[in-house]
């Protein structure tokens, strides 16, 4: 049903956020119950009567009535959200306060505040990602476990521990707090990880990957729509995500096989997302701070503008990676820099750069490290070394799509070796 799209998941996030603001974060479980109840009612009624004209409004009104009902019946507003208790108790009828709390601007604000709350400093990064996916994106524990190829019990524990931390804060994060900018960079980082999980993550199923990327884009767009959170780094992050998401349709070919950037059919790239990304990059250029998101977006935008790998100004890409190594150095960035150098100055120079990566042992379990070494050895013509590295990468591959790609490349090694041997014997004759 196209018009409803991800209505249930997204409205679930909005309802939980709005209700958690009213009930307080320590009553998150109650907010979730009321939300689940509203969704169940919608399902029962819409099955038989068909969905109403404004399904989102129907759901929110149902949640609102239930919350008001709880408040009147239980007379426990005092134990609910501390900052709202007075308004709700003093009013003869809290209904008018409720209308404001369920206005669309208020709910958007609640979603943002919930996003910030989920990035609590006491939570590990993977817990932040899981909480956002569960609370704001409406994914079940089972769905998150499937996307991350992790056991359900592990995700369940991660989420319930995370919720216990949130409950301790009683109220949602206030965007005017003085640690706001610190928290904003955690939010950026979490959305970046969420996007990467979809883009590079372990789950082989294309639909899941795309949904995770779409969620990161949706939440990033929310940040850009609020004047407090729409800072240059936010625009840069969203630009980066748009420019990468533009390549998603070409990353997997019609046979369901993985295609590397250099081999992609660029006519499959999403022009609208590229245009959005370029526009956001302009907006991101306003400040004085250069973040890693700015640089990564710049790299993606150079790729997006190039018609083919041969048309790509690799020198410019190498210098962006130099900058990235200064502001956020990591072995993965160094590896990507080496690959750009290989494109610019030849595969042997790339291999030399990989050999001197600091901390390269941290890449030992990263399949792309072995695969990159293999590709460059292949191009240099060292087929035995290429095969060894491809085999190593194959042992680390996380899904059938990666495995099929590496098996194909292994076969290419054998074929090249045969061709080379053939030439050698002819020369000898």
């Amino acid at each position: 049903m196209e018009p409803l799209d991800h209505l249930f998941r997204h409205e679930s996030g909005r309802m939980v956020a709005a209700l958690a603001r009213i009930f307080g974060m320590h009553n998150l479980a109650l907010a979730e119950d009321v939300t689940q109840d509203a969704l169940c009612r919608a399902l029962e009624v819409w099955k038989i009567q068909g969905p109403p004209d404004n399904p989102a409004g129907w759901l929110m009104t149902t949640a609102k009535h239930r919350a008001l009902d709880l408040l009147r019946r239980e007379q426990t507003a005092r134990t609910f959200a501390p900052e709202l208790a007075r308004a709700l108790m003093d009013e003869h009828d809290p209904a008018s306060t409720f209308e404001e709390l369920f206005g669309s601007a208020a709910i958007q604000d609640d979603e943002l505040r919930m996003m910030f709350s989920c990035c609590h400093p006491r939570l590990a990064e993977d817990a932040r990602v899981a909480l956002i996916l569960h609370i704001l994106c409406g994914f079940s524990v089972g769905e998150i476990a499937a996307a991350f190829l992790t056991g359900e019990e592990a995700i369940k524990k991660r989420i319930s521990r995370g919720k216990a931390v949130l409950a301790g804060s009683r109220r949602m994060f206030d965007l005017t707090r003085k640690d706001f900018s610190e928290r904003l960079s955690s939010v950026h980082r979490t959305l970046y990880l969420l996007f990467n999980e979809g883009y590079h993550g372990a789950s082989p199923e294309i639909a899941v990957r795309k949904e995770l990327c779409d969620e990161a884009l949706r939440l990033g767009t929310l940040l850009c729509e609020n004047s407090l959170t729409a800072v240059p780094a936010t625009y840069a992050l969203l630009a980066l995500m748009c420019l990468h998401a533009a390549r998603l349709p070409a990353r997997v070919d019609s046979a369901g096989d993985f295609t590397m950037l250099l081999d992609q059919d660029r006519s499959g790239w999403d022009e609208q997302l590229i245009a959005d990304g370029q526009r956001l990059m302009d907006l991101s250029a306003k400040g004085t701070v250069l973040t890693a998101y700015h640089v990564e977006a710049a790299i993606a935008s150079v790729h997006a503008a190039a018609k083919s790998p041969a048309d790509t100004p690799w020198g410019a890409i190498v210098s962006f990676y130099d900058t990235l190594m200064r502001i956020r150095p990591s072995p993965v960035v160094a590896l990507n820099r080496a690959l750009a150098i290989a494109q610019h100055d030849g595969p042997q120079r790339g291999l030399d750069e990989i050999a001197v990566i600091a901390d390269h042992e941290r890449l030992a379990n990263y399949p792309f490290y072995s695969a990159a070494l293999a590709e460059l050895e292949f191009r240099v013509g060292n087929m035995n070394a290429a095969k060894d590295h491809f085999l190593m990468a194959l042992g680390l591959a996380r899904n059938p799509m990666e495995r099929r790609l590496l098996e194909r490349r292994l076969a290419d090694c054998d074929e090249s070796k045969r061709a080379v041997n053939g030439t050698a014997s002819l020369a000898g004759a």
Partner: protein
Amino acid sequence: MAQFLFLYRRPYEQAALSPAQMQQNIPKWQVWFQELTEKGHLKDRGEVLEREGKLVRGSKKNVTDGPYAEKDLVMGYTIIEARDLDQARELATGCPGLSTEMVVEVRPTMQLNP
């Protein structure tokens, strides 16, 4: 054509569905009702019932909350027109709820001139 009541019953306690799974159910029902309508079988979509109400019993008119104790719950009904019970039963097999623990009770309305 005879009239039949489709009673939708489901267990009181149900396995929780994720929001996405819930949403996936809705278009299936729309398709089913669309087919029933096009083939002229849908007399009345009927109503959806609240989960809880009151039970009034006996000459003492005992009133209790309910129907918690029931094994399964009537969630709603539809009125269907069909040639005979066989055809009505056949139509009920298309109900999308069957894959989510639902039972469709097919009951012919009594005819004055059988």
